[in-house]
């Protein structure tokens, strides 16, 4: 399940959907990304998240399919918000269930690392000194590169 939406999401509802799926599940890993009040050295008042509708969903589907190919996974739930956000707001959720914890941890982190570097979302921050587009981070590119197989 992959959703791009303006509304907030409810971790408990996502977790329940993962958990109630099957008694063969032994591990559920969730990642939630929150808006920080500080970035690139400045206080941030709000954030606007833009995306390339249509392409975003395709890229996220592809990343999740790659995770399924690589690890033994029961279910994936992925939600990414767009539009206006405030500090402490939830931005993104990735939940993965599996029989074993190693698969759930790896798949969840893999999905986030590739979402960060491949999914067409862009953040514009509002600071006291005006608006600015957030710069891509080298650390995100490095994180995605770790998953390359030899």
């Amino acid at each position: 399940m992959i959703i791009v939406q303006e509304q907030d999401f409810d971790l408990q509802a996502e977790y329940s959907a993962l958990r109630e799926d099957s008694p063969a599940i032994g591990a559920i890993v969730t990642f939630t990304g929150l808006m920080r009040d500080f970035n690139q050295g400045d206080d941030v008042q709000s954030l606007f998240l833009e995306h390339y509708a249509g392409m975003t969903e395709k890229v996220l589907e592809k990343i999740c399919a790659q995770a399924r190919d690589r690890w033994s996974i029961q279910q994936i739930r992925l939600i990414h918000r767009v539009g206006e956000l405030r500090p402490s707001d939830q931005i993104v959720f990735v939940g993965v269930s599996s029989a074993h914890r190693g698969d759930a941890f790896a798949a969840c982190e893999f999905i986030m690392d590739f979402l960060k570097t491949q999914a067409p979302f862009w953040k514009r921050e509002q600071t006291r000194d005006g608006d600015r587009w957030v710069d891509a981070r080298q650390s995100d590119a490095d994180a995605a590169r770790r998953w390359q197989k030899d």
Partner: protein
Amino acid sequence: MINLLFFARLRDDLDCQQESLALPEEVTNVGQLRDLLCQRGDKWQQALNMPGLFVAVNQEVCDWNAELSGGEEVAFFPPVTGG
């Protein structure tokens, strides 16, 4: 005709979100399309040479050799910053 899309900083810099363009006969790939757009002046030249610029044809990221035959959706955008 191709459908051009520009996102985020690129859209702001070019002051252009979407444009329909008749493809000249000699333009057969996205690299040539970029060269054509750069001829519009400094603003375009600068924006379409930003570090890490992506191009996607029909919503799939591709390299500058990707072929165009008309009818495609071609999107230019800066490095992504979601998550």
